[in-house]
């Protein structure tokens, strides 16, 4: 697949760079995933701090969301400004199913994903044929459409108050999600499984088809790839992972709020991707951790959160011109390959 990268040296984000190096055997990804899960799972034994566990749970929710957005932005070149709608959809879908029907948690989980698949397919079918900026706007419009539906359908969704009264969590398979540690371990498991699956998608032949579409959609369609179908498929897949993130969030706050479906969630997702970098698979994960730390410290220090965050964004966008992981990878590559040569 190396010939795909020819002629891409002028790419401003340098997206293609990590790809040649990432031909590690698959089981290595699984091993790394298992090791990460192991470390996270024993964490509560050593640190009893609830704040730390909360932080990791939030990281899981946003990490799933941001990484799935990167499948669109970084791998396929589709800048979605409405990806947050699936985050909100996951939170509301799961919350509502649990509140209204009282089915076991796994059933509600699967049902939410089925609903997300249906809605994402309909929305995606309309959006994915549009180009760059129009795609961004139409996804944004759908996001706002869902947001206003949530606000106005108060009898179902609780309107601007959100889903209140808590989400019931009956015990299943010995897992009690109202127990904080159980919830923590489940979130970590969902995160690791989600990341592994997304990694699998990104490294599969389908993942390389997506990169080709990003680089030159015309060429891809000339060699017989159905671009529309590939874009729609990844749009729906990304929506599923975003929805899973929303489910984790709904479990964490035991409810769902209209802000989960507001455009700012999508804006933050884009920003997380930028912060961490879109050229590496784990970039968005790094970005998530950075943003949440930044968020927590800055809101504690000042009420003018926007100014600080804005300046940090400017630093990355104008100063560094790339995300942190991109920067690290490039620096590492330069050091390894000798000065001046790109990794």
């Amino acid at each position, binding site marked *: 697949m190396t010939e795909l990268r020819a002629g891409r040296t002028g790419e401003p984000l340098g997206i293609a760079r990590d790809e040649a190096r990432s031909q590690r055997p698959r089981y290595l990804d699984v091993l790394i995933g298992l090791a990460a899960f192991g470390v996270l799972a024993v964490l509560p034994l050593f640190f009893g701090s609830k704040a730390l566990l909360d932080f990791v749970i939030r990281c899981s929710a946003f990490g799933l969301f941001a990484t799935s957005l990167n499948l669109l932005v970084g791998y396929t070149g589709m800048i979605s400004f409405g990806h947050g709608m699936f985050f909100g959809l996951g939170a509301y879908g799961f919350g509502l199913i649990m509140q209204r029907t009282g089915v076991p948690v796994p059933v509600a989980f699967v049902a939410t994903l089925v609903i997300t698949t249906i809605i994402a397919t309909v929305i995606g079918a309309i959006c994915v044929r549009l180009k*760059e900026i129009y795609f*961004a706007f139409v996804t944004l419009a759908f996001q706002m459409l869902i947001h206003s539906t949530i606000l106005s359908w108060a009898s179902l969704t609780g309107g601007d108050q959100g889903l209140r009264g808590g989400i019931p969590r009956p015990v299943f398979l010995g897992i009690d999600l109202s127990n904080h540690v159980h919830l923590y371990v489940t979130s970590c498991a969902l995160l690791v499984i989600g990341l592994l699956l997304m990694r699998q998608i990104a490294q599969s032949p389908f993942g390389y088809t997506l990169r080709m579409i990003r680089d030159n959609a015309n060429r891809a369609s000339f060699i017989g790839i159905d671009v529309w179908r590939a874009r729609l498929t990844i749009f729906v897949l990304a929506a599923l992972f975003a929805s899973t993130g929303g489910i984790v969030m709904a479990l964490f706050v035991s409810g769902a709020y209209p802000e989960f479906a507001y455009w700012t969630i999508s804006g933050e997702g884009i920003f997380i991707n*930028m912060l961490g970098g879109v050229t590496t698979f784990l970039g968005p994960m790094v970005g998530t951790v950075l943003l949440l730390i930044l968020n927590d410290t800055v809101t504690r220090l000042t009420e003018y959160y926007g100014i600080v965050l*804005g300046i940090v*964004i*400017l630093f990355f966008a104008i100063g560094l011109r790339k995300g942190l992981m991109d920067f690290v990878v490039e620096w590492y590559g330069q050091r390894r390959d000798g000065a001046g040569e790109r990794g």
Partner: protein
Amino acid sequence: MDLDALTGCLASPACLVTQTTSGFIIGMLLFLVAVGLTLIFGVLKVVNFSHGAFYMFGAYFAMTAYQLSGSFALAVFCGAAGTALLGLIFERVFMSRVYGADVLMQLLVCYAFVLIFDDVVRMVWGPEFRSMGMPAAFQVAPLFIAGGVVPPYYLLLIGVALVAAVILGLGLARTRLGKVIRAAAHNPGMVSALGINTGLIYGGVFALGGMLAGLGGALAAPVRSLTPGMGFSVLIESFIVTVIGGMGSILGALIGALLIGMIRSFGSLGFPLFTEGLMYLFMVIVLVIRPTGLFGKEVV
């Protein structure tokens, strides 16, 4: 949903006039913001995500100038001139650095300024709702047209916006400067090779766009409440307007703005809770039928 109210209104001339007027002023304010957005996109190929902030600053500048001087004309002038200057600085210092970069970078720089500007307003003018109050000259009895209430200020607002639309349209089509701007939109490299300073043109167009949004904000100040987040909903609506009308088309912005104004005005009767949803729905429908908007040219 309250379809009876909607059909009832459509049957009564008084209500029809009132709602149409209110649709017009919503539309005209939107037009002033959206036309700047569409102009900046048409010439600079940049989507100014922070455009709502100029509207917000226009309103706040006008309020302060009005409170200090008591003159409404001066207030409107300050709102427009202040945002023009702000637009020039913003373009020259920040946006000009990300031309040619990824769309993502441009969006991010603008996103950063949305956050910064909102907080600056919060610092300077406070987080609470402010209101400028109707200028004394317009505190007169409303006109009655066919039984419908039309405040005189609304007529001024509609008049100013229409004049701005005509000047802008004719200026771009007929004057030498307009031709240069259109040429720069088409082929900046060639324009620059002919000895014209394209940086100046870009800065000027951004300032003009900022000024129009500021003018909209200043004119809206007497009839809207001022809050630090006020730019954002206007921004989203102007996006809808430009997308419906077609990016880069001034006529499209006017038609799109009026359509959205009417949808908001009449939709609030029939679907009080889903008015915003109606706009998004309308945008989706337009885009599905004509992806480039009603008056847009093909996207390259």
